[in-house]
């Protein structure tokens, strides 16, 4: 009998020996058959079943096949490594990782990559660049204004290549690419902060993705994994952290209307020509003055975000706030870029979660 060895670099020595000793392919097959063929799920199987490409999910033809699956005859197979999701009779597999695939209503952060005919192309980390139509942005001069030809000619004055913005996915095209809009006060061009990218699958979908954090810093956790950490806007009713049921945007909106005073950079509803002039501010390229301490806090949040991403911990605002707390114990901001520190922040976070029984 021929000796067959396929060694896996990371495999512990004992296992390699076991393989060697066995020396028989057919027999190994039975022994090492780890759930490969047993992957047929009946409806009783637990919710988070892991499947891998080519694995049989079910031979029940009554299921409808969704994303991440394919079928032959009556059998449905998985096309990606991920977890099975069932919605009514629709069976789909969500990959563990992958490019962001936009869904209507997602709050995302993106970067302008191209200015073209009446539209911008926006890199949102998906397969295709998203499209932001000129008619889907708040034009300077107030929300009520209609777009004019002059606007078409000066699109670069509004948003140009390299600009970052946060927006909502308005609709999807047939090929899965997204059309965005920023026709709300909480969306628009981004300034006064730093841009961080984490894998999109780590961002936990929530009602709100824009949060004011302790330390005078706000954060937008784009569903696409693009995040923006910036100095909290002034003249704004302070919003209590994550426990607040009222969304920041709503609060901001109230601030704008109730206080009577306008908030620069919020694109408030304005009709006077004076305010029209100042509403160009929402597309300004200039940062406000930011104090060193705020800058340091922003950096700390950034490093915390990266630490979470490094440890593959799903991110939401509470976890980030906790990570921030933990990070304070590690002293200087600069020390946080150390890989070991990142890992121990992650560990601390998981442990603290376990202790409290939540997270």
């Amino acid at each position, binding site marked *: 009998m*021929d000796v*067959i*060895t*396929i*060694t*896996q*670099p990371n*495999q512990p020595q004992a296992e390699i020996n076991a393989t060697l000793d066995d020396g028989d*392919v057919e027999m*190994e*097959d039975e022994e*090492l*058959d*780890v*759930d*490969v063929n047993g992957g047929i799920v009946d409806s009783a199987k637990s919710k*988070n079943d*892991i499947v*891998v*490409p*080519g694995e049989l999910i079910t031979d029940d033809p009554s299921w409808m096949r969704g994303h*991440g699956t*394919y079928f032959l005859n009556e059998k449905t*197979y998985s*096309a*990606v*490594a*991920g*977890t099975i999701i069932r919605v009514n009779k629709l069976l789909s597999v969500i*990959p*563990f*990782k*992958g*490019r962001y695939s936009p869904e209507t209503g997602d709050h995302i952060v993106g970067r302008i990559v191209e200015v073209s005919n009446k539209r911008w192309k926006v890199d949102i980390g998906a*397969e*295709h*660049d998203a499209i932001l139509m000129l008619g889907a942005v708040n034009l300077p001069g107030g929300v009520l204004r209609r777009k004019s030809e002059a606007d078409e000619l000066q699109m670069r004055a509004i948003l140009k290549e390299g600009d970052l913005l946060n927006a909502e996915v308005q609709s999807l095209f047939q*090929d899965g*690419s997204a059309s965005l809009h920023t026709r709300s006060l909480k969306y628009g061009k981004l300034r006064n902060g730093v841009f961080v990218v984490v894998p999109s699958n*780590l961002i936990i979908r929530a009602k709100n993705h824009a949060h004011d954090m302790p330390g005078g810093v706000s954060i937008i956790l784009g569903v696409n994994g693009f995040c923006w950490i910036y100095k909290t806007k002034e003249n704004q009713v302070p919003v209590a952290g994550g426990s607040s049921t009222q969304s920041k945007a709503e609060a901001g909106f109230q601030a704008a209307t109730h206080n009577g005073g306008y908030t620069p950079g919020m694109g408030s509803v304005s009709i006077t020509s004076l305010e029209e002039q100042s509403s160009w501010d929402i597309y300004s390229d200039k940062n406000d003055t930011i104090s060193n301490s705020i800058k340091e806090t922003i950096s700390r949040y950034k490093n915390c975000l990266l630490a979470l991403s490094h*440890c*593959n*911990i*799903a991110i939401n605002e509470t976890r980030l706030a906790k990570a921030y707390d933990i990070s304070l114990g590690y002293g200087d901001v600069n020390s946080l870029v150390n890989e070991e520190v990142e890992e121990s922040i992650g560990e601390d976070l*998981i442990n603290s979660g376990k202790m409290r029984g939540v*997270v």
Partner: protein
Amino acid sequence: MDTTYASSAVKALPDAPVLSILINHPPFASMERKKRPRNDRRLAELSIILKRCFEKTIMLQNYARSVIEVTVTILSFDGGLLATCCNSITLALIDAGISLYDYVTAVTVGIYDQTALLDLNSLEEADLSFITIGVVGDSDKLNLILCEDRLPLDRVERLISLGIEGCHRLKQLMNETVREVGTDLLSKKQ
């Protein structure tokens, strides 16, 4: 075993989906430290072969107007180049969440006298005749066969059947790893 690293990215393109595979073989990866010409036909051939291996296995129909770019960098070469590229690309594609019909696994099988050997190192490759076998999933169908040495025709059948078994075994190992990583990812997400 040599190590290769593959990354994949999807980007918009006006037409039909495109799969592009680029192989880097830096001088430090092999013993001779030979600088390779930029238009090395051997690497060009390798990348074409790999491209054809994956073209039918990736569900390209899901990626209209996109390009899937795969870059393989050979970090250390010690035999089984094509097979390892194949396996690492499979894992990289799975990691990138790209839809595949099944795993593509490949392994080299050599023959010494009457004995068939799996997975040769570069010294063995230099002296023995060997073939590279590639299989998709658990089937007995061949996706890839490459033989560049002289080999009696009547030996081929045995080498192929051993190769297929090797590929199936490799699939199991890769499967375990993918599941492990997946479980780990999931546990932290909770």
